[in-house]
């Protein structure tokens, strides 16, 4: 449980951090909830680690027009307990509150989580359902990537070499929306065996908008667009939920086979949709 020797730098400014990572193979350390255990097991063997904890301006939550900006170094606890997020994007707070355990939530960060892109992480389901954008910065400039284009594969994102996650921008949820994050936590790791994030709007009895993000089921978080379309075209919850995971290959491990995982994703989608609908006004 001792990592390989590595160089450690803790830059004091974003400029310094960007220069460091532009200079070659660097591993960025945010909250360290995934990187440090992997290093201790020598599954990750970085030669140079750049710790962002001293970089000013990366930690904080602010309202910017019709969205909320969450600095990359904001902890899960920070998100979960933020009055602004609870009021403006409650789905994200609900997902954050179910990440790992309290120790992990006190250390782990949203930037670290999205950059690591664990296929069983909780945030990505909520972020794709919220149509969030990931804001990246490099020595060459800044760019923004939609969450559904950001998570490419297990542990693979749209981040290019030299880029750092600056913040995550989450559009404000409409007050009338219903939302829900439902997950099956793995009994050992606490990661999502499946996790389903749902947002819905309804007028009368009719669903006018549905967004469904799914994590844990496949190699990346995805939007269950077929299920969304079914809901928006008046299908009942069971029928829509049964379409969740269509076209996606389901993961398998000791705890859950691919068939069971797919089934869980559908059951939990149905539960999350029903709960979200009951919250919608």
């Amino acid at each position, binding site marked *: 449980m001792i990592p390989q020797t590595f160089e450690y730098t803790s830059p004091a400014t974003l400029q310094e951090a960007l220069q460091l990572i532009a200079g070659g193979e660097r591993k960025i350390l945010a909250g360290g909830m995934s990187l440090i255990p992997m290093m201790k097991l020598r599954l990750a063997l970085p030669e140079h680690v750049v710790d962002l904890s001293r970089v000013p301006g990366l930690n904080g939550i602010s309202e910017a027009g019709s969205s909320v900006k969450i600095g990359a170094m904001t902890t899960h606890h920070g998100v979960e307990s933020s009055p602004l997020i609870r009021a403006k994007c409650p789905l994200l707070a609900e997902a954050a509150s179910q990440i790992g355990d309290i120790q992990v939530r006190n250390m782990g960060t949203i930037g670290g989580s999205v950059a690591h892109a664990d296929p069983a992480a909780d945030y990505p389901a909520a972020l794709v359902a919220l149509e969030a954008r990931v804001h990246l910065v490099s020595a060459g400039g800044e760019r923004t990537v939609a969450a559904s284009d950001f998570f490419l594969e297990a542990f693979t994102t749209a981040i290019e070499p030299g880029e750092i996650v600056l913040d995550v921008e989450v559009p404000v949820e409409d007050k009338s929306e219903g939302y829900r994050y439902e997950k099956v936590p793995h009994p*050992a790791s606490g990661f999502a065996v499946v996790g389903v994030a749902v947002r819905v709007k309804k007028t009368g009895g009719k669903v006018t908008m549905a967004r469904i993000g799914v994590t844990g089921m496949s190699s990346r978080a995805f939007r269950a667009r077929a299920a969304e379309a079914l809901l928006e075209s008046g299908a009942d919850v069971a029928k829509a939920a049964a379409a969740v995971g269509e076209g996606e290959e389901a993961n398998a491990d000791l705890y859950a086979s691919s068939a069971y995982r797919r089934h869980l994703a559908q*059951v939990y989608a149905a539960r999350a949709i029903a709960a979200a609908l009951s919250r919608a006004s």
Partner: protein
Amino acid sequence: MATTITKPETLVGKRIRRREDPRLITGTATYVDDVKIPGMQYACIVRSPHAAAKIKGLNAKAALDHPGVAAVFTGADIKDLGPVPCGASLPGLRVPHHHLLAQDRVYFLGHPVAVVVATDRYIARDAADLVEVDYEPLDAVADPEKALAPGAPAVHPEWPDNIAFTYHQDGGDIAQAFREADVVVKQRITSQRLIPTAMETRGVVADWHSGDRALTLYTSTQIPHLLRTLVAGILGMRENHLRVIAPEVGGAFGSKLNVYAEEALMAHISMRLNKPVKWIESRRENFLCTIHGRGHVDYYELAAKRDGTMLGLKLKLIQDLGAYHQLLTPAIPTLSVIMMPGLYKCKSISADIVGVFTNAVPTDAYRGAGRPEATHGIERMVDILAAELKMDPAELRLKNFVQPAEFPYATATGLTYDSGNYAAPLQKALDQVEYRKLRQEQSNARAQGKLMGIGMSTYGELCAAGPSPALPVGGWEGATVKVEPTGKVTVLTGISPHGQGEETSFAQIVGDELGVDIDDVVVLHGDTTLVQYGIGTFGSRGLSVGGTALYFALQELKAKVKKFGAHMLASNDVTLSGGTCRDERSGKSVSFAEIATAAYRGIQLPPNTQPGLVATYFWEPPNFTFPFGAHMVVTEVDRETGAIDIRRYIAVDDCGNIINPLIVDGQVHGGVAQGLGQALWEEAVYDDNGQLLTGELTDYAIPKAHFMPFIESSHTTTPSPVNPLGVKGIGEAGTIGCSPAVVNSVVDALSTLGVRHIDMPLTPEKIWKLIQGGQA
């Protein structure tokens, strides 16, 4: 002067908070890793990445050249040292020579191959990666039934059948029992491999003093004295030159009831380098290299009359031993055999054990050690019989219990149950859940399509290990009570508590017996130089055997105190109570502290009396004790996902008299947690190559606090006649009673689908598949 006789307030029976806890919860306790000695070196162990391989070559040059590396030890360095000891003996037992480090072959994943010693633990770890080992991988087998199949890879080439031993035991007339039977039910039942997962991993500091040729070994162990004898044997050194200290031990559950290669290795290395050396096991190593528990595949047959009368029980027990015998490995399944009839009057038994070598870390004692497997077997079989006969499972149990008037009761397996009232805890549990009403509720729930289950287990335990002839080591225990000149009391106990709370419960006993304040009592343990030889803590023996030794030592001490008191009061008839020695006729008295002072001052010695106030007593138990109880679990299964919700958990345990109910609560809670772990979440899984797929806490699910149901814990009290305290033992009861109650409840929930048995752990997918497919 009028005499008022007031019964002094007793400490025994009170919920006194554990005196050891403040240091544990404030981080001020000293564990092995807190031991720091000037000049100390750190060891890191190079371990096999293969479950079976030949070692064709080993090159340590790069490691030795690494700055800061003091030495690298390999198999060649230790080949003449004694093997890792197996303390159990069975007729015809095949015992592979268990070298401290692999010689030309490795037998399980994590098998130690070399030790790198360096000035700090980081250098040692880096240099371990520089040791080049040339392996030729071989076919491995990690499943005991596959290991028995013809053509399976041989774990040890000299024994191609992979059979370490076979063992047969019978009692009564099994053939006749099965002839007379109206019904025979059969079932294959497994008790999966478990990883004990103590919060503190193992660790050793060895400190050799060449000047006085003395070695101090700090190690996280349950058995410091036995370990001293055995490690001295491995090293070929004089036992009294070795001092073993078990500092604070952060959990063990049987996994530290052992002598491990690393303990002898560090001792040897310290002597070779003439420097102190420390090794702390990583969590990964703890998963790979500290013993596992359970590992049973059991084939049961239960014969009964149509009215439910149990006649005979047959068991074929396949024990996954792993690659070697650790201290008690082959003895554990024999404990399952002797406890196989449980609480029932089952007059005929027949059992056959096959002990099987596999390419896996050895199994050995883990909380309950053989009894959970036996209890799981019989309690599942009783439910299966009840289902077959369409009888209520509670009624079937009540019908077959050994009755209170039948104690001492001789079992078909050769044990003598000490005392019991087996119906009492079951009746209490039934009343508590309002059983009839609950069954009605269940039938309503079923009508609505709900999967609600009611399950019970009525378990029997074998504790207070035990009579020496019945154990591989002495089963007695010793205690010394020293009254210091100021009247303060020091207890030296040979048990080595590591969470059982005897620093508190023993002080309660002393306080009552001597009438001293509990804060004036200190209980010392875990140091072979400080404490007289002892056996240790395992098999729920701390209080029942160690506490009894203390009780008898206190009686001897009291006699001497009274002798001094009588002399000082010039009386020939004194009483000792409440810390005062009194002559009731004269009304004169002398305090306990005054007597202590006089005993050491040496001026007022009674005739033929030595100065000082010290008593030592070694107590040999005449029998085991047999606690029992009833656990009842109400579950609801989620039809869509297979997830299990425990709605109620009722534990009614009878552990005889209770010294400290708070400690007993803790033992019940912890025991149930580990029982739930086995029932619902835990399983050590090796793949066909002998790779451990559950090798980290991210994959191997131990119960977390928020997984726990509320435990409705209560007791019935049937004192044991085996010891004067009337205590039986509670350390393992929760674990033993739990798993069958949970499985019985879930099987009951699914019984309407035709499910008759489910093997542990009851993972949601397993349950979901049964719901999909019906039949188990």
